[in-house]
């Protein structure tokens, strides 16, 4: 179906978007039979008329903007998009069902939502649902997995999984993105990929804390495996498949995010352990962190869905200042033994 060359647009000006665009440009220059045309819109917040017009000629849109920018961007572009197009997003966040300003006003989403994190509202709306609600595009997918911008830039081995209910979305994304260094896998579990990807920020934040406390490699392994199991419970309750959390989009990305390279949430966790308040740590970091809002939202969803989320709960108490690190850790370690 995607045997012919496709036109691709990357929307986003961050490092991850630039790395994806550069990866695609490299493929296009070496294999023009796969990519007919590449359009990189680095400032999608203010689309020019030309840019909007050219979007209608695109077969595959790759969306890699901060989550807060998604809705305004889609509204600008919607009239130029159509049902023949497919869209994949590389946004590690769930969106708000309604206007973000309402959520922010209630203080529930006080942290800006960036490219990695942010579950809002009990009726959490995923980015793919937002695309469906705002544009005529029906065939949507999500990308997640152990692939850092740095890996893509330096053409080191990396992998992504494309989750979509539609075979042709997976096939188109694979056709455009797959190279010997970037392996592309596919799954129908769109919800799983989106929730797993959004959950990674929580584990990264926790990883930063563990790292600052010098808890060791085993603690990291425990955090990743038990974290994946915990977030899988949340994902399954939201309609995802458990196995997705144990694959590239879950554990795969968690391993990378807790490695200390490039994850803003990991750094945030480290700063918190230096005694900085959440606000001060975020200011010091100067980068978008979604871990805290993700934790908050995961706990809220867990409560609404009657789920046991010990890591998220302990982290929530820690970052909201209701408990000390020692108590939070002690609680985690003292929690009842369960069959794995």
């Amino acid at each position, binding site marked *: *179906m995607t045997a*012919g060359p496709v036109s691709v647009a990357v929307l986003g000006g961050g490092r991850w978007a630039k790395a994806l665009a550069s990866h695609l440009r490299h493929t296009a220059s070496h294999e023009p039979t796969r990519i007919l045309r590449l359009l990189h819109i680095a400032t999608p917040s203010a689309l020019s008329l030309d840019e909007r017009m050219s979007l209608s000629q695109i077969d595959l849109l790759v969306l890699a903007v901060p989550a807060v920018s998604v809705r305004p961007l889609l*509204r600008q572009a*919607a*009239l130029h998009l*159509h*049902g*023949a197009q497919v869209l994949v997003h590389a946004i590690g966040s769930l969106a708000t069902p309604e206007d973000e300003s309402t959520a922010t006003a209630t203080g529930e989403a006080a942290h800006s939502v960036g490219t990695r994190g942010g579950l809002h509202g009990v009726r959490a709306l995923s980015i793919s649902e937002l695309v*469906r*609600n*705002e*544009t*005529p595009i*029906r*065939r949507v997918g999500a990308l997640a997995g152990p692939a850092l911008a740095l890996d893509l830039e330096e053409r080191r081995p990396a992998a992504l999984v494309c989750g979509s*209910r*539609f*075979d*042709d979305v997976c096939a188109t994304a694979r056709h455009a993105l797959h190279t010997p260094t970037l392996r592309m896998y596919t799954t129908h579990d769109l919800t799983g990929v989106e929730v797993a990807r959004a959950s990674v920020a929580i584990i990264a934040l926790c990883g930063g804390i563990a790292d600052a406390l010098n808890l060791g490699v085993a603690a990291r392994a425990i955090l990743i495996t038990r974290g994946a199991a915990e977030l899988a419970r949340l994902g399954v309750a939201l309609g995802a498949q458990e196995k997705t959390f144990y694959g590239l989009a879950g554990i795969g990305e968690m391993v990378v995010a807790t490695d200390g390279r490039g994850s803003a949430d990991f750094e945030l966790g480290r700063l918190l352990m230096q005694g900085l308040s959440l606000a001060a740590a975020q200011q010091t970091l100067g980068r978008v962190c979604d871990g805290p809002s993700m934790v908050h939202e995961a706990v809220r969803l867990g409560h609404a869905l009657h789920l046991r989320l010990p890591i998220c709960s302990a982290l929530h108490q820690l970052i909201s200042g209701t408990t000390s690190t020692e108590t939070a850790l002690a609680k985690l370690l003292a929690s009842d033994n369960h069959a794995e």
Partner: protein
Amino acid sequence: MSNRTTEFPLLRFPRERATIVQETAQRALQAVLARGAPEYILNDTCLHEIRRLSESAAQEEVKSLGQWKHLWRHLGGLDRPALIDQLAKVVHGFTEDVAGGFSPPVYGIATQLLPPALGLLLTPESVTDIASHLVQPAKLLSLLHERLQVEGALLQLQRLSRRATLVCVPTHLSNLDSPVMGYALQRAGLPPTTYGAGKNLFTNPVLGFFMRNLGAYRVDRRIKHDLYKDVLKTYSQVILERGYHSMFFPGGTRSRSGRVEQHLKLGLLGTTLSATVERYRRITGAAAGPPIPPIYIVPVTINMQLVLEAETLIADYLKETGKSRFIIDDDESTQIKRMVQFIRTTVTHAGAVVIRFGAPLDVLGNPVDEEGHSLGPHGHPVDLSRYFWVRGVPQIVPQRDAEYMHDTGLSIARSFRRDTVLMPTHILASVIWRYLDVALPGLDLYRRLRQPLDLSLEEGAVLADIEALQARLRSRGHLLGPHARGSAREVLDAALSAFASYHSEPAVLRTADGKLALGDRQILFYYQNRIDSLGVLP
């Protein structure tokens, strides 16, 4: 009343039937052969039929058990042309079995007979004095007019029906739904539709005669093999392509629980999408053939104050094993005595039935404007044809189309929730069921239905609860039917009187001391499920 009875598509059916059967059989054969080798398909079909006919009684079968066995035994000795020939015969046999018929004279008689018959059915007081009503049919018709309300986007649908194919998808409560829909279409000024009816219903000689001659085609739900499904789908697609308005009950069967259907069966409905792709293929020249009119899906809610078969349906639902009982042939609708009782006592209030035609949708579940153009998010027009493009050419892509249909199903389910009209029986049942929840906390459904409980409720408290529920339903945009939108007192009286008028034991009753008491809890559960399924309760 329709003034277009001389022009609707079903009138063409007698002339086109042979061609339709031939085209269906040919296309279904191609579809079947695309799935696998003829010997495997035949083997599978024979084994299915042999098993089915060994376990259940024959009903005008395509082949007898002996014939299927004979064919199965000889499959090994047939060469490919002979196998294809056998397969073609089998496919043709099933197509003939499925294909409906339409007789304009029978339609003429039916349209004359149906309104008074429904009038009798829905006006119990008239039965005691049939003779006078037969002398005064006008009175009967006016009573029917009062009892059965038809509402919704009728003008838009009438306009669309002249240049497009409408596919009505009603909710399904009762075996009365088909005749009620037939009448409602007529009242709405809409053309009659063809529809798939369970083959078991055709065994009733009177019902069978009318259905066979009024465009219904036969769906044998006992047959599970793929070949039969291919024939059914192809038949449905062929008649849609030829512009025959159709009707599917997407719930698949009557709602056993009384809940508004949310998990829809999309197999046959998917033919609206295939026919639409074929329409665009012909428009773009990718396929040859006469033009195909656009297709719109019209969700319809059938809302009844009382349901004829409620007792059997809910009992069946509550039986663990009964949940899989797909065909019920011993319910109230098959018992003359119960039918007469229903006729005599059912609805003692006006507005007993409300048929609401929802806003039409395109085959992807998008709303459409007055002219039928598809509308995307924020009401912007969208080009429907592009959803089916594969490198610029409209094509059927089964996996993609199944996912599209899944979304269409969600749109229809949303429409069902939005357009459900609630009756006093639903409101009272919902209110009283909450008392049961409080009185028997922590018990599962089955215990709540059986645990001895002497509940005696003050009328004042119940009236306040009814008012609160009405306010909640209104604030969520739900529709309240006649009497249900009146005062709490009106709702209570209408519901009590309705419950008392028909069911063996009323769900709620007034005791001698003026209080309210629990009656048949299963019936109560059945009627409260309507509101429960809308997700409006805290």
